[in-house]
């Protein structure tokens, strides 16, 4: 035992020595170098996935209003970030977790990850987004639609109408045009699988996928490959001479294509098949064992407050959860509304997810 302690002491000494060295060398990787977590109740820590983003000015406004400074920790994609929280349950790294969606919600709730807190302003969020209404363990913050996107130029050149619905995708006119993500590893991939399950039901979705397969659907590992390498409508795809004009992406991808182009085009190069959408709802919650619960509560209020909600669309390219939030012009102009977004009950998702993904894999990937 004592040897272990000695080793530990040596290692700590080594680590500290290195930190000191680093400080001498001018290496300062942010404020955390000086403060451990929980160093004071003036810092509130938000744990999220890699896609989390917010304008610095908005965070500053929060600090001015409440006195709390926000520290953001990003750790991998949505699934990995949530799983890390589950592993560290009871001694969490932060106070608030943002980014659990309806496909993962039950996993988070079943593991007792969150404390109950009813955020101020919840009444301005539509009831159908409040999936944990009774207990308020999570607060809906935004929604996003996973939809098939199409390359406008391709369909204009071919004088072919772009597909609108899931049924259309199985039509011979769209043979060999669609690329989708692996439902086992990618969240848009899973979303699209759930869209088909929502549409055709437990008994029907496999038959539908068999049709898609016969119609030449291509499966790749993740969104990056599908969108940047295979989809002919994206900036990356054009450079890669991609040849698939249909891809599973987001309803907000067209405005992103406009916003991140220089000069900005007057029309988005891509469109959305509005009848193919699966609705994702993203939640935030106060972590069980949070060191700064008061700060965490203030942060949750802030996440559904006006400033943050208005900042969301152009930062994370999702829709604000709060009703009647003013949308930025470029987002409103180039974004498209899903006709009737499909959804599946979170409990059912948890129950069936693994089984669906397994049978999907053996059906489509082989």
């Amino acid at each position: 035992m004592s040897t272990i302690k000695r080793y530990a002491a040596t290692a700590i000494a080594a680590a500290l020595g290195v930190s000191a060295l680093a400080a001498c060398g001018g290496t300062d990787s942010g404020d955390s170098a000086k403060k451990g977590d929980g160093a004071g109740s003036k810092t509130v820590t938000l744990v999220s996935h890699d896609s989390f983003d917010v304008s610095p000015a908005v965070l500053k406004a929060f600090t001015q209003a409440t006195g709390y400074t926000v520290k953001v920790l990003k750790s991998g994609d949505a699934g990995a970030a949530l799983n890390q929280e589950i592993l560290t349950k009871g001694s969490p790294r932060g106070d608030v977790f943002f980014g659990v969606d309806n496909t993962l919600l039950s996993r988070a709730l079943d593991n007792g990850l969150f404390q109950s807190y009813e955020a101020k302003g919840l009444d301005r969020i539509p009831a159908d987004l409040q999936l944990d209404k009774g207990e308020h363990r999570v607060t809906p913050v935004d929604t996003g639609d996973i939809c098939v996107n199409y390359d406008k130029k391709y369909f204009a050149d071919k004088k072919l109408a772009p597909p609108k619905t899931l049924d259309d995708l199985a039509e011979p006119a769209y043979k060999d045009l669609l690329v989708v993500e692996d439902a086992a590893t990618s969240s848009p991939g899973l979303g699209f699988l759930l869209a088909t399950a929502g549409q055709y039901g437990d008994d029907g979705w496999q038959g539908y996928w068999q049709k898609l397969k016969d119609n030449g659907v291509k499966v790749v590992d993740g969104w990056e490959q599908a969108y940047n390498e295979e989809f002919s409508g994206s900036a990356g795809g054009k450079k890669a001479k991609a040849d698939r004009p249909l891809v599973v992406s987001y309803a907000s991808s067209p405005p992103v294509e406009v916003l991140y182009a220089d000069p900005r085009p007057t029309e988005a190069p891509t469109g959305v098949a509005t009848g193919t959408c699966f609705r994702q709802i993203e939640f935030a919650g106060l972590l069980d064992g949070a060191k700064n619960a008061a700060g965490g509560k203030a942060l949750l209020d802030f996440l559904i407050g006006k400033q943050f909600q208005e900042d969301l669309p152009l930062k994370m390219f999702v829709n604000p959860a709060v009703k009647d939030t003013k949308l930025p012009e470029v987002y409103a102009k180039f974004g498209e509304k899903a006709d009737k977004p499909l959804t599946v009950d979170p409990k059912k998702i948890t129950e069936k997810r693994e089984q669906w993904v397994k049978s999907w894999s053996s059906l489509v990937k082989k």
Partner: protein
Amino acid sequence: MAVPLAFFALFFAYPVVAIVGRGLKSGGSWQFGRIGEVLGDPDIGGVLWFTTWQAVASTALTLLLALPAAYVFARFDFPGKQLLRAVVTVPFVLPTVVVGSAFLAVLGRGGLLDELWGVRLDTSVWAILLAHVFFNYAVVVRTVGGLWSQLDPRQEEAARVLGAGRFAAWRRVTLPALAPSVAAAALMVFLFTFTSFGVVQILGGPSFSTLEVEIYRQTAQFLDLPTAAVLTLVQFAAVGAILALHAWTVRRRESALRLVDPARTARRPRGAGQWALLGGVLATVLVLILLPLAVLIERSFDGPDGYGFRYYRALQSADGGGGTFLVPPLEAVWNSLQYAIVATLIALAVGGLAAAALTRRAGRLVRGFDALLMLPLGVSAVTVGFGFLITLNQPPLDLRTSWILVPLAQALVGVPFVVRTMLPVLRAVDGRLREAAAVLGASPLRAWREVDLPMVRRALLVAAGFAFAVSLGEFGATVFIARPDNPTLPVAVARLLGRAGDLNYGQAMALSTILMVVCAVSLLVLERIRPDRSVSGEF
């Protein structure tokens, strides 16, 4: 020895054992039954089979393509040789997120092969194999070529004078001297390809999966810790076996060889055959390594209105057309450099002490320790990262939200490189010099400073360069570790690629190019300060 042991115990063994233990233990009792259950699963069996055979095939293909290059680099003098040697090493330290897209540009649709012969290899096993060659080419060129260049050609000539044919002389004289280093290189390539993650994920498509990919899926996506634990154990066993074999071949290589200055063994190629060989090797390097890198660079300049520095300029502003980061992406370069410097210092301290300890002592236990230090190269990053999360969560060691965790994880991967570079040089230092210093009254520290340090300084620099480059490109562990909002270069590239839009894609390419250049420059500096008698450094 205490410091490196403590470092490994605390930052490697403990987290890994804890996460595996968490998986295998349920309700307080061990679930060894799970092992059989998981291994009996036909899907897992398929993964195991694919992992093994693709590693064997990748290793064979790498040897086939890289051994001629090892010979050419060792024996021939040609203009640009040093630059080329640095460039072929660049892929080895590049993160796979960057390379995947470049590689698809050559092998995929509309790529060079497609345009010339209509051959498309994306999402085929060939893409995986060739990418593995791309990544590991340098391992063979450097390990085998390094030794080859120091073998005295006169020994072979002597054999020929004595009447042996050209082939017989080579087989009898050069081959036996070379064989252990070929074996060592092959085993390293096998190790890297056996635990391949990014290449298989990006180029293989969803129908191929290695053990490492499966561990990632089970841990990060499904949170199926029992299955992940069993797979980790399987990978451990396999990697352990590879490392044991590797340690054995290294020991065999340390038999006395008469080594000479590489500058004396290389000369300009003579005759059509040798020129053809040189040409063939250069062509392979061009197509397999330079071309994907060039495509990457080309795309970083290829804006909507012709070539230009548009994307590079965009990197300087926080809101390059909308703002993917809180800080200008270019700051990721600075973050990366800072992390890499700290990681290099840690790796040098730990690896240097370990190498010193390994030099002083001998015996089975010490050799076991030698192999142990290599283990982080073969253990899945997600296992280590998740292990960190559940073990380093108690004060005073609650490092989970500390920036130091990133360099610590990077140093784990850097240490094996430091040890492997330092060890042969340290072993070559004559122990009697130290004794003489001690007799003359020098303290051990003074003896080390006056005797060892001057002799190993250059090796130390080489080791530092490798650790630095590896830390710079490290992606796997870094991405799983909580960190304040200052992304490293590879992480920034991955984030940019994760967004739609022309500007994001272009900036990702520009950042990748910067990463490449930084790697290439540090490797070139390495070439310059290479110890003149570097006794067959391993990498």
